[in-house]
């Protein structure tokens, strides 16, 4: 079964700082990759996803992620964070033909004004 690793569970940074969250998965076949975000008091929602084409994917609110197949990675980035980016971020994976989302443990990100 596929597994997803996210490191640095707690991240604290100041507004305007750059953010990068790592995501690595363990599965040798075709994968589909997702980043979900959960703002305080809200439900999980899709930030961006990759399943084919350009490995650099742009999502909502200025986020982007890059799929690097050789590194089994799908890192999330934002060049300049805002206080409103305070949230928990989850990386998730499905494999080809399978709708089972395997989630990482999440990154709790706090942006200090």
């Amino acid at each position, binding site marked *: 079964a596929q597994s997803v690793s996210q490191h640095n569970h707690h991240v604290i940074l100041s507004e305007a700082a750059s953010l990068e969250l790592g995501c690595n998965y363990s599965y040798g076949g075709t994968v*589909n990759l997702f980043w979900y975000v959960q703002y305080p008091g809200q*439900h*999980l929602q*899709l930030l961006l996803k990759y399943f084919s084409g350009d490995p650099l994917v742009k999502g909502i609110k200025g986020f982007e992620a890059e799929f690097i197949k050789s590194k089994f990675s799908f890192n999330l980035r934002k060049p300049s964070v805002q206080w409103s980016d305070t949230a928990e971020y989850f990386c998730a994976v499905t494999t080809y033909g399978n*709708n089972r*989302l395997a989630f990482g*443990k999440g990154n709790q990100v706090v942006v200090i004004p």
Partner: protein
Amino acid sequence: DAMVIQNPRYQVTQFGKPVTLSCSQTLNHNVMYWYQQKSSQAPKLLFHYYDKDFNNEADTPDNFQSRRPNTSFCFLDIRSPGLGDAAMYLCATSRGERTISTDTQYFGPGTRLTVL
């Protein structure tokens, strides 16, 4: 707005007392999922329905059951809750069309279950 609704948002039950959590959707999606999320852990898929077809995960305890009486509603039944079943339970839906593995899943706000 089309959405995924979970009731109740907070549920307290006693050890061993059956409890039912409900989920409804206005998205008319084919697939409905139930996840369990314990504190500081990743959401873990318990089972899902593709239309009327029930798909149980191999490691989901028998204590957990589900019903989907129609497209809009899905229920999670915990027959005899233990202390270890205290968690956030998330319902999600997806379209379930041709390329199901690339589907976006739409989540409800969750029900936080406390077991006394």
